[in-house]
């Protein structure tokens, strides 16, 4: 059996179907319940071994909440999370525990995500102690040392504390901690945003090597579109809790179909003065609406230069567009034609 997107079921390792994470906002006056804040509102995705799904979007689009939902760190409101054909009962802690070893995460702030009072050796050994308790102490020590070396640190640094390391080295420690239990899925939430560009390149390279070596499925969340393009096989764009567009990386970046994707790409400053002087930006009027009170119909319509009357009435579903793109826009055909007209 194959899914709509063409991937066969056996390929998908982690499958998420119509995931919703809604946060209740205290009841209204006179007992009326306030409508919830819809941080993630109906997101579906598949993660495949050895492949990377990039997830982009701006502050408040729900990308970090989605990452946290996939690791059980925020409660899921509804939707299915299926890992290797086992559906996670997201209301049962035991169901999550089975997933802990297979789904690991690395975080944006490398120093803040490491316990300052533990040595590097202790930090990397901790997941093994909890998730692989059957290992002997010697076996554990051996695995920790091997992993620390694998991420490019030296074994002589094993008894040092996080504050003695640079940001890039701390991120390597975070990667070692995540990979030491040999997970099948790695969720990276803005893993290089806090690092200098030369360090970014090295961390991305390390992640790619480790992925190739262990065949890990990566979910790579970032706001830096250029970095996402480098590492991702497929890219998903989110806005206000919903998926706007999803396509193979090169297709999405070369022929964006959704107005929001186009606006995002047009806003990226290019490191080239000649390109910069001639760059034409699609400005988005107004401000990001509150996710507690999103617009009716298409959530992007209040800022969309191509919005029509029907955008307010109808919520666009993610639909096929072209051969490989899926887009949640009623007027993608018009938008793309417009792009060709202006580009020519």
């Amino acid at each position, binding site marked *: 059996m194959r899914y709509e997107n063409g991937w066969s079921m056996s390929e998908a390792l982690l499958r998420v179907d119509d995931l919703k994470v809604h946060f209740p906002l205290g009841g209204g006056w006179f007992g009326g319940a306030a409508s919830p804040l819809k941080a993630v509102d109906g997101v579906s995705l598949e993660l495949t071994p*050895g492949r990377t799904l990039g997830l982009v979007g*701006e*502050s408040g689009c729900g990308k970090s909440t989605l990452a946290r939902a996939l690791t059980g760190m925020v409660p899921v409101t509804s939707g299915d999370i299926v890992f290797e054909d086992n559906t996670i009962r997201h209301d049962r802690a035991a169901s999550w525990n089975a997933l802990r070893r297979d789904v690991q995460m690395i975080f944006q702030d490398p120093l803040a995500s490491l316990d300052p009072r533990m040595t590097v050796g202790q930090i990397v050994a901790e997941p093994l102690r909890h998730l692989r308790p059957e290992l002997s102490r010697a076996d554990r020590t051996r695995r920790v040392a091997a992993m620390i070396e694998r991420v490019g640190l030296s074994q002589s640094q094993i008894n040092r504390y996080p504050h003695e390391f640079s*940001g890039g080295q701390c991120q390597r420690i975070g990667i070692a901690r995540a990979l030491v239990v040999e997970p099948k899925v790695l969720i990276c939430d803005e893993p290089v945003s806090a690092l*200098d*560009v*030369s360090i*970014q*390149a090295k961390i*991305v*390279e390390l992640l*790619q*090597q480790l*992925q*190739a*070596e262990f*065949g890990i499925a990566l979910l790579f969340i970032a*706001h*830096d*579109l*250029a*970095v996402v*393009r*480098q*590492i991702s096989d497929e890219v998903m764009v989110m806005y206000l809790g919903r998926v706007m567009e999803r396509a193979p*990386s*090169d297709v999405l*970046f070369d022929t964006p179909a959704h107005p929001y994707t186009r*606006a*995002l*790409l*047009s*806003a*990226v*400053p*290019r*490191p*080239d*003065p*000649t*390109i*910069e*002087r001639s*760059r034409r*930006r699609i*400005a*988005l009027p107004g*401000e*990001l609406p509150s996710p507690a009170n999103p617009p009716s119909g298409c959530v992007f319509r209040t800022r969309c230069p191509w919005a029509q009357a029907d955008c307010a009435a109808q919520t666009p579903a993610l639909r096929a567009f072209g051969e490989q793109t899926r887009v949640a826009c009623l007027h993608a055909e018009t938008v793309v034609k417009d792009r060709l007209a202006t580009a020519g």
Partner: protein
Amino acid sequence: MLLDVRDLKVSFDTPDGVVEAVRGFDLQLAAGESVGIVGESGSGKSQSVLALMGLLADNARVTGSATLQTDSGGLELIGAKRRALERIRGARIAMIFQDPMTTLNPHLRIATQIKEVICRHRGLRGGAATQAAIEMLEAVKIPDAPRRIRYYPHQFSGGMRQRVMIAMALACEPDILIADEPTTALDVTVQADILDLMAELRQRTNVALLLITHDLGVVAGQCERLLVMRAGEVVERGAIDTIFASPAHQYTRDLLAAVPKLETPHFARVSS
């Protein structure tokens, strides 16, 4: 020359010995010009401009010279008296920082904070000051300014807070605007809005811009000249097009090569 900085050096006395943060910084800035300073963390780019403003920590030692053109000739900023610097800061040289949330006072309404600048340097009071503050917010395109001027900083989004900072910085029509990573904390579409706004205001007011950033894309669109810093030294300087087209220093070449490009995949794909 509006600002002439020669052989600026900054070092810090620490319990572990002396740390040399800036080991020779030169800069000539003409009126209305836009100069970018790029470099990675710890390259000394922020410390150099903080030294000009007299805003360094107490354990800093500064040598060298920085002359600001004034009506009565030139004023030496390095080692200048506190009172003299207070008259310069905000009025002649204004500064905006990376994180607008930590540079605005969370306890005070935006109105109070903008009016403080206007009162101090322009001598306006009461209704006139409020009116001037509202006009400043309108100039940075904050919608519904007369109502929103009564907001507290947390009621604004990150982009709107940075607009407030720009309004405050430009309230006294300074000659030089120092922007230290002004858009680093912002989303890409908001960053583009703020950069457009800065370019527009620069054209209208002829303020000279000193833009500190790690983002080569940002300087490419905003600056005429560029300084590349590394380990406390300026390793390359020149016209922006020249540096991007043919970087002379190896470090500049490495820096440019490390920037991931949006147009074409850049990192070597590791095949499994």
